[in-house]
């Protein structure tokens, strides 16, 4: 290659690099400024005593080491919130997958007509505003003139004040989480089910397997990676549950429905303990990151 050719090639390369960065720039500026930077800043904040007074002068916050994190462990409200979140996530995820799978199997192999109607109907809550849905549910479970107690009244039962009872309130919030989200699990399961070769079922039938045996020994094992994926997706989503308790119970009664994300919100934006709130948020983040990593491990060891 002559010197001139090399120069031309180099110019072409430079121009392509420049174009690449130009095309990336608008996205990157917004993304780095309003997402990546805050994510890093949150980490730093969690080691400071940042509070309301620091809003106008962020750099005057003092470093307090790990004391925010130490405080978390002795904060009964945080421990309660962590327990509540765990309950929401465990029950919510298991039920979400179970109902989603049942619906997917029924749609895939149980029926031949009206599939689209059921699929669209079951998916409606997924796209609807969770705030509106939580408001509707709160109305449905209203003690005095809600539909649920109205129906109970019609058969002669005096319905309870659902959302004022801690156990019932937790149950209703879990039910709402599943009600709203299982349509998504169903769609992903349906995709997984359609990937199972029909020959497997034919072979099982020749061996005289009944439907339940088919499900146990073909469907479930073949959906393993789909289930892992959905478990992690649902867990991560439910760990951040906020709107349902915010609208239905405001975390009550007795903080029994207060999730971590709502306590972060209270500490950060009602009490203005931003440093403390950041420590809490980062703890949640670490849990989510750990779950994601475990998922990748499991998936990799499988393939």
């Amino acid at each position, binding site marked *: 290659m002559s010197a001139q050719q090399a120069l031309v090639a180099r110019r072409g390369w430079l121009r*392509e*690099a420049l*174009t*690449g960065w130009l*095309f*990336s720039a*608008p*996205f*990157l500026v917004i*993304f780095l*400024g*309003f*997402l*990546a*930077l*805050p*994510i890093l*800043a*949150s980490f730093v*904040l969690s080691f400071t005593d940042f509070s309301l007074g620091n809003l*106008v002068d*962020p750099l005057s916050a003092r470093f307090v080491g790990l004391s925010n994190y130490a405080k978390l462990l002795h904060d009964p409200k945080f421990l309660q919130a962590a327990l509540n979140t765990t309950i929401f996530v465990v029950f919510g995820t298991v039920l979400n997958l179970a109902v989603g799978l049942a*619906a997917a199997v029924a*749609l895939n192999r*149980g029926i*031949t007509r009206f599939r689209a*109607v*059921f699929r669209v109907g079951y998916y*409606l809550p997924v*796209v*609807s*505003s*969770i*705030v*509106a*849905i939580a*408001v*509707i549910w*709160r*109305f*449905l479970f*209203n003690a005095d*003139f809600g*539909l649920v107690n*109205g*129906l109970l*009244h019609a058969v002669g039962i005096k319905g309870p004040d659902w959302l004022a009872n801690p156990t019932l309130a937790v149950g209703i919030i879990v039910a709402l989480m599943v*009600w709203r989200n299982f349509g998504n699990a169903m769609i992903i399961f349906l995709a997984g089910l359609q990937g199972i070769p*029909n020959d497997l079922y034919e072979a099982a*039938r020749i061996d005289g397997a009944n439907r339940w045996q088919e499900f146990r020994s073909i469907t479930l094992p073949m959906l393993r990676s789909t289930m892992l994926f959905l478990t992690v997706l649902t867990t991560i989503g439910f760990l*951040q549950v906020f709107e349902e308790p915010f609208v239905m119970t405001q975390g009550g009664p007795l903080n029994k429905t207060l999730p*971590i*994300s709502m306590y*972060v*919100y209270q500490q*950060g*934006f009602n009490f203005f303990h931003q440093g403390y709130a*950041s420590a809490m948020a*980062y703890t949640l983040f670490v849990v*989510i990151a750990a779950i994601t990593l475990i998922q990748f491990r499991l998936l990799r060891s499988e393939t």
Partner: protein
Amino acid sequence: MSVAAPVRAAVPVVTETRPEPRSPARRRSPGAWWVYVALSVGLVFLVGPFLWMVASSVKTSAELHHVPPTWIPQTFTLDNYTTIFTKLNFPQYFVNSVIVATVVVASNLLFCSMIGYALAKLRFRGKSAVFLIVLATIMVPQTVYLVPLFVLMSNLGFVNSYPGLILPFAAQAFGVFLMRQFIQGIPDELLEAARMDGAGEFTIFWRVVLPLLGAPLATLGILIFLGSWNNFLWPLIIATSDQMYTLPVAVATFSIGQNAVDYGLLMAGSVVLIAPVLLVFLLLQRFVQQGIATTGLKG
């Protein structure tokens, strides 16, 4: 499954199986009726609350508090809607939601496809680092960065403003992932041919790449729209006055306010909040599925 059909014909029919004239090779039909019943009961539980919302929104206050509750409104009234649109600030909330969603969708469509093109088709140093950083943030929950984001916004003077509502969602990581994936499927020959004709990269992007991205852009646009329209936590934090509320913030705030909850108004507000999304979903459902099918084919 035509291959399997002969095999199946040779198998003795399982006792309770009835013959299925339309698709004999595909499935058995036993128990189908109870599956329909179960699925229909499920559908009632899923659609019921929506119907309850609509029915309640056109009832009078007296009827709403009637025990036992009525399904069909005895006296049909639009008072709840008139009230939220004339006495309450709902026109403003609606406009705010529309403005935010429109700008967020437009900026994601443009910026995600631009960077997607760079990452898929251009060579430059640092490219893989950029992609990795963007990808790494997909799993980060919103809760993590709410606090510093608010500090940043208050120092920029964006609290309670459109930029404050819009900017954190104007460049979303999953859009980059989606667009890069689709653009990788465009044959290089097409771009080379345009380059031979002397087209610059911007012309190629605008005239060759974008027109091929119809379905993916529709998919991305719908997903971003749904996310923006239903978004709650950040708007709740950044919209500090009634003037900047989006619809979800307004509905939530009314539902937990100090005054006695008026469910008639709340149900009307919920209809206004949910209806546009259902409309978009039902109308463009096919488009979304098309987009997903295209990805499946290319991936």
